[in-house]
């Protein structure tokens, strides 16, 4: 375990410092509850205007939407603000002066950055939309609880989502070594990630011709696949395949990131001073 010690220390330190931003998490919580409700109203109108069999039932879509709002912070739609700041200020010099692997260090930073706000938001949000909603007459709009098998499968798949998300975040961070501001990369990734992950519209509701493309991209593993496991749209028997796909993309993106970083370090110019 000794080789893991520096990385776990960074993970835990960042996690603790992120927990200081509780007010931001609470503010975000209300925004997202509001967003989720607007989303659900749109789907309600859509489902009540059609008799055709849809790929997801209305109850499944509602749960899908709430999971998306609760786990929004897991989505890699932005380069790590801390890494951005250290690259911009030149403090990245200190990162290179540490006797540890820079990729692993940034990956762990990303992991803390994804998990801390997710936990801060997801717990109160789930309590609200799963348990409080039925009590205040919003039972139709509540987050349904999964079956045991689906729940376990979801737990495994969402863990892999975290790894995949950190691999994508770290890749965006590495692009900072070339552009410093990374605004271009961020705008591009933002669009790719939110649309192709299923965050905007659940992927099964996309046209049939788009399905092979959506399933071939790595982004489905961020939102769509684990959420469909939860709502029971993907049966427990297919869970190993989903996890394999998530891990496959994680490995590919980690290797790509490591390769790019090795090149980036050689050309790095520390800004200022």
């Amino acid at each position, binding site marked *: 375990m000794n080789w893991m010690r520096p990385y776990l220390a960074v993970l835990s330190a960042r996690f603790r410092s992120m927990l200081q931003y509780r007010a931001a998490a609470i503010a975000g919580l209300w925004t997202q509850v509001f967003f989720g409700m607007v989303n659900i109203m749109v789907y309600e109108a859509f489902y009540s205007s059609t008799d055709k069999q849809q790929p997801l039932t209305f109850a499944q879509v509602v749960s899908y939407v709430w999971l998306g709002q609760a786990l929004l912070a897991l989505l890699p739609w932005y380069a790590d603000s801390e890494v951005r700041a250290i690259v911009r200020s*030149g403090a990245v010099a200190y990162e290179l002066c540490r*006797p540890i692997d820079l990729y692993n260090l940034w990956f762990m930073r990303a992991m803390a950055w994804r998990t801390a706000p997710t936990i801060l938001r997801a717990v109160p949000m789930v309590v609200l939309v799963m348990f409080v909603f039925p009590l205040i007459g919003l039972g139709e709009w509540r987050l349904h609880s999964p079956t045991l098998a689906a729940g376990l499968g979801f737990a495994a798949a969402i863990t892999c989502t975290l790894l995949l998300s950190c691999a994508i975040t770290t890749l965006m961070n590495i692009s900072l070594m070339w552009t410093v501001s990374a605004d271009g990369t961020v705008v591009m990734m933002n669009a790719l990630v939110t649309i192709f992950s299923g965050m905007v519209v659940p992927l099964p509701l996309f046209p049939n011709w788009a399905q092979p493309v959506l399933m071939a991209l790595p982004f489905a593993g961020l939102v769509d696949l684990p959420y469909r496991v939860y709502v029971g749209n993907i049966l427990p028997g297919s869970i190993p395949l989903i996890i394999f796909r998530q891990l496959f993309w994680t490995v590919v993106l980690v290797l790509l990131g490591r390769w790019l970083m090795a090149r980036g370090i050689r050309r790095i110019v520390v800004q200022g001073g």
Partner: protein
Amino acid sequence: MPPQIIVEDLVKTYRIAQRDTGLLGSVRGLVRRQYRELGALDGVSFNIDAGELVGYIGPNGAGKSTTVKTLSGILVPDSGRCEVRGRVPWRQRVEHVAEIGVVFGQRTQLWWDLPVIESFELLRDIYRVPQERYKAASDELIALLDLGPLLDVPVRQLSLGQRMRCDLAAALIHQPPVLFLDEPTIGLDATSKLAVRDFVRGLCRDRGVTVILTTHDMDDIEALCDRVIVIASGKVLCDGSLDALRARVSRQRWLTVDLASVDIEVSDPDATVVRREGQRVCLGFDPQAVSPAELIARVTAKHAVSDLFVENPPIETIVARLYEAESGVATATT
């Protein structure tokens, strides 16, 4: 014993994207980029032995930071040789950085949102320092730098002087034998500067740590360094003791005289007036042309003098002259 640090003929050139001015220029820049070469190091060489405390000085943009960053394994030079304790910094980065400590005065290595002590503990884990060694090292650093009252304060709430003391401790948690200090006293008040200097001096004297110190503060150099390396435009201008540096630029000494009244004109064939402020006149002279005793006798014989003293010109003046000579600017009237 071979030198602790070997630098031989180090060359580094930055390529900077040129941008033309105006909208049209910006558009052109998107299509075809023009690069400007900026030489940062142009054949820098020096050796440093274990336990030396070396001042590394030069004007802005001379290549000081580039040298320090190369020695730290952050930058890869274009050519030349560089070894620190037998390792090439950028090739064996991880092994190398475990044995060095660095402080970049303009930035902090502490975690902004965490209390100071947690940054120290984090560094303990990052450098894999065993708990007993960490305890001994941190207790000593905390005592020497008087950090006790600061340990539970989040870094963002520290003053610059407090932060610098904490940064120094952070660079030494893993007890490195080599320490690079890049402008550690920049922006500090007098008390904090003295604290930093005392600490660095002790580190070198009592523990034999090899220190390279870059600074613009000549008082740092005078207070700490036996040896000074002066660089300008990427070249070493001078490498030796402070006295050797003085001797090389000028042997001049200063005789400062407080006159009895303001309206006395002072002149002497062997001395020039360096500056005059009210009753105080500063005369520069070459001690080989005229002995201080003789000059004092002549001046006091001619004028009514209330006080006088002889001193070396401040190191700032010496260094400024050296820079001017290098950049080809005519030597100032001093």
